[in-house]
């Protein structure tokens, strides 16, 4: 039995789900608009003879059917970044504006972080945090290659992240007392990455799911606390486990002042589940989006958007 069999009762088309999970993922890159335009990146790929096609839902997310994302000039210039198609979703759902103050609580290795920076036109303040010092070097490397200048990189436990070093409570004009937006792309059991990481199930256990769910709750609670009233928090994982998804939302809805809002998602998916393993969740968790690999031929994903203090 693989962990996937746990979820077959939730899936609309089990045969398609299984078949998609067995297929490898196509190489996908995101165009980095901090350093170039989509047209220029595509021109450069064309002139190097690298076949590419835009996804049907985003002109700056390109599939490379025959090539890997590196070893070409557009990559050397930081114009493109290898990033799984579905992982482009949470930053788009968060949709920050230039000048905003944004916290990425679990930022390394930085694909979504650098996408947030691009959506902010590399202006405002982006705090990219990760508790894993080793993974921070990948975040720093990616941010530098992609030309991000609005990021402050921190190495703290997101569950008790302090705003004091950002000037909280001071009368400085740039002091950050709360963020406008936060992204919690949480550490998870990664079941949805099985197409990319065939060994994703090797370390799977229900104990691990339960233990990581505790961490996820702590991080999401802190993200809601650190975001201003009216601001938004996006929660995402690459797992199918309701314990790590809807149950985490249910916990935070109860513990903090926030509510789930609808996602205007450009990708196909199904609503969050309101019941699992004998437990019922707040009905609003149905506003979350579950993406199974067969829906859009991507990895598996979960994404939800919360509005704070409203």
């Amino acid at each position, binding site marked *: 039995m693989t962990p996937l069999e746990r979820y077959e009762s939730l899936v609309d088309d089990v045969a398609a789900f299984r078949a998609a999970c067995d297929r490898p993922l196509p190489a996908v890159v995101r165009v980095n608009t*901090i*350093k170039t335009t989509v047209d*220029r*990146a595509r*021109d*450069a790929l064309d*002139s*190097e*003879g690298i076949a590419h096609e835009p996804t049907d839902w985003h002109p700056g997310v390109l599939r490379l059917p025959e090539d890997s994302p*590196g*070893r*070409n*000039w*557009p*990559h*050397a*210039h*930081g114009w493109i970044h290898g990033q799984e198609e579905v992982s482009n979703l949470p930053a788009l759902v968060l949709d920050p504006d230039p000048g905003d103050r944004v916290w990425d609580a679990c930022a390394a290795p930085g694909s979504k972080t650098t996408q947030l920076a691009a959506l902010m036109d*590399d*202006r*405002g*303040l982006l705090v990219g945090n990760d508790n894993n*010092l080793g993974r*921070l070097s990948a975040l*720093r*490397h990616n*941010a*530098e*290659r992609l*030309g*991000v*200048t*609005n*990021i*402050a*990189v*921190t*190495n703290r436990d997101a569950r008790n992240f302090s705003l004091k*070093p*950002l*000037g909280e409570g*001071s009368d*400085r004009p*740039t*002091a950050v007392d709360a963020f406008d937006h936060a992204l919690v792309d949480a550490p998870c059991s990664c079941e949805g990455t099985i197409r990319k990481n065939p060994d994703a199930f090797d370390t799977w256990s229900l104990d691990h799911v339960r233990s990581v769910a505790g961490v996820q709750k702590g991080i999401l609670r802190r993200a809601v606390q650190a975001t201003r009233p009216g601001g938004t928090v996006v929660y995402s994982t690459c797992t199918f486990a309701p314990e790590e998804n809807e149950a985490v939302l249910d916990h935070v809805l109860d513990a903090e002042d926030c509510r789930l809002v609808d996602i205007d998602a450009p990708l196909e998916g199904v609503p969050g589940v309101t019941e699992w393993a004998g437990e019922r969740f707040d009905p609003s968790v149905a506003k979350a989006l579950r993406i199974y690999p067969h829906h859009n031929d991507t990895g598996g994903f979960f994404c939800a958007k919360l509005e704070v203090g409203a």
Partner: protein
Amino acid sequence: MTDNDGQRFDRLPATAAEREVAGRASRAEVIDWWVDRFGLDADTFDGYTFWEKGAGKIWIFAADLPSPVDCEGVGMTFLRTRQEHWKPTTNAVQRFGGAATRNVIELDPDEARRFLAGEDLTPAWDGDWGYLLVAHRIAGEREPIGVGLYVHDELRSVVPKGRRASLPTRE
């Protein structure tokens, strides 16, 4: 004057007159160096803050925070000071060097590929010695690749190991 604490990020003083840490470059000196060296518009770096961590490593940051700041990074590495010849970083040249009008050497396709792989070259150049912005043409326009050190009729690639690549020859 106090000594530089290389373990933390300190904002650069606006001008040399406000310097409190020995040997620290000022914001004005850093901007002047980039503007003079590469012929950039004087307002290119308006709105950015500049920070030092380590011995002379300068960072450019699009935001501002209380100084000193307890972070692993603020913005991107920009310039190496506290040595005779200041040296811009590859990533900063890629990010800000597109509008450069001086000290830019444009390589042909074969030279550009070898430069990115870390090879030293002997291209034709009758300008200044020192750190040059190395560029090539891609998608119809000139684009900076990185930094080269031109001395004794030789262009040394100083592309850091993590940014080097051996690209296939494509026809």
